């Protein structure tokens, strides 16, 4: 099999051809700056607002509540830093979790160096926040709860509505990093009590370099990026018109296909999980069995190390990940896997496979066979496995 099998859709996705088609006219034909007064540019302003409307609808939000950014990371930084700044008269305490994406964690660490206090909540063995711990963590100085909608490594979905209720009851702002969840699972910002929400187009078959922050009316945060009057004076910089249009198109398609897609992905995912757990010994599934993203499977194979596994899968044309791609520069085992209680050496041997609706049963079968072969080969050269078999 020479064709590549792409099982890393949590890292990024293929931009849909329909999305690219929607973007194309805005490069060479309708290239005007939406802020200009002439007719030629006003069509671009319209296109931007159409995309904004599509996204607002997908969230159950108002069109004036969606602000485009340069990606999910910028949206997370904006929500957290601008809240810290705008509400510092009220307090300096932020609550988050130990399993957030680095876009949230490193922003919180930055704030800690600048006089803010951050509580990093534990999660249970499935990666779910403990609501009673959240309640207990709240102080009179708490100004923000930021908890991700779904985890990028183990796919666990949080009890967002319950968190939203706790936030509301305590009159604290609630931000959620929905980069992995948006247009994959049902979201309604009002029903769920969400005040701010981040998303990124390239995770849902849209283009890279474009994201948004939903900001509920009445939330008094200001800009992270200062300058021109774009985005209702809250996010300066010439609008990335093709990017925005592509994002809109991707959301339109993703929302229309969500139900069918999820069904197909869940079926394939469950087949994959079943085969791997049954056929590879000393293996565990990380994350919650049910409350997980439709396309996510995350395994730990005892006695082996993740990078070697990835490289060997790559030699067999299988694209996968161990932890999040963004952290591949780091040597530490995933903070998420440590937070759900895995010991270092088991966290090291983890593999994340994130499917798309384009994957086939044949691809999954081939992948499972290869995993079996490679895990076997790596275990044969593992001193940990040697010790383990000796002890038996």
């Amino acid at each position, binding site marked *: 099999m020479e064709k590549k099998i792409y099982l890393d859709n949590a890292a990024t996705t293929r931009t849909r051809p329909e999305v690219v088609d929607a973007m194309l006219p805005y490069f060479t034909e309708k290239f005007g700056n939406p802020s200009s007064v002439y007719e030629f540019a006003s069509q671009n302003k319209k296109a931007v607002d159409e995309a904004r409307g599509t996204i607002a609808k997908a969230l159950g939000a108002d069109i004036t509540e969606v602000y485009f950014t340069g990606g999910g990371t910028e949206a997370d930084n904006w929500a957290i830093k601008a809240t810290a700044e705008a509400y510092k008269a009220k307090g300096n305490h932020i609550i988050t979790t130990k399993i957030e994406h680095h876009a949230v964690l490193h922003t919180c660490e930055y704030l800690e160096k600048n006089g803010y206090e951050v509580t990093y909540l534990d999660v249970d063995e499935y990666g779910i926040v403990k609501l009673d711990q959240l309640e207990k963590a709240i102080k009179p100085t708490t100004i923000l709860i930021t908890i991700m909608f779904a985890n990028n490594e183990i796919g666990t979905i949080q009890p967002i509505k319950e968190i939203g209720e706790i936030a509301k009851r305590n009159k604290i702002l609630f931000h959620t990093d929905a980069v992995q969840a948006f247009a994959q699972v049902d979201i309604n910002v009002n029903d769920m009590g969400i005040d701010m929400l981040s998303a990124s187009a390239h995770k849902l078959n849209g283009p890279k370099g474009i994201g948004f922050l939903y900001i509920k009316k009445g939330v008094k945060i200001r800009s992270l990026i200062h300058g021109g009057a774009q985005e209702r004076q809250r996010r300066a910089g010439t609008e990335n018109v093709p990017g925005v249009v592509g994002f809109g198109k991707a959301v339109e398609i993703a929302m229309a296909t969500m139900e069918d897609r999820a069904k197909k992905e869940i079926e394939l995912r469950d087949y994959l999980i079943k085969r791997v757990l049954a056929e590879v010994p000393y293996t565990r599934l990380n994350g919650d069995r049910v409350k997980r993203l439709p396309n996510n499977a995350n395994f730990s194979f005892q006695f082996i*190390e993740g990078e*070697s596994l990835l490289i060997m899968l790559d030699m067999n044309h299988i694209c996968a990940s161990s932890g999040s791609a963004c952290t591949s520069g780091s040597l530490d*085992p995933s903070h998420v896997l440590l937070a759900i209680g895995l010991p270092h050496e088991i966290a090291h041997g983890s593999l994340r496979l994130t499917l798309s609706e384009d994957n086939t049963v044949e691809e999954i079968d081939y992948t499972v066979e290869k995993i079996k072969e490679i895990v076997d080969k790596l275990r044969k050269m593992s*001193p940990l496995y*040697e010790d383990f078999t000796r002890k038996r």
Partner: protein
Amino acid sequence: MYTEKVMDHFSNPRNVGEIENASGVGTVGNAKCGDIMRMYLDIDETGVIQDVKFKTFGCGAAVATSSMATELVKGKTVEEALKITNKSVMEALDGLPPVKVHCSLLAEEAIHAALWDYAEKNNIKIEGLEKPKSDIHEEEETIEY
């Protein structure tokens, strides 16, 4: 990210396995990343390394450096083997990415640990060999801005 030589040694590692009743066995762990390497040496009466095997729990660079290190020590005398450094292993592999330099330390230390075990078993002292640490560190790589 890896050179052709690294990929070659990674996909076809030389000398993987164990030696029954080895003259010396050394296991070292890398505190930086949690990876582990074990080296087995078979040394004859004249002090020449006749056979060598390894096992590694680690990244691509760790596997490749282990494999290369076994090739380098094979047939050498104990004194010659002692002169093999992580640098010479890296050079033999045409280099490693900067974040992977620490991986090559495992190989150097595993050789030393196996030689130390050999010396202890035979009650001899090898000139220039210090008791290896079971956990190895290196200087923090500092990024200068």
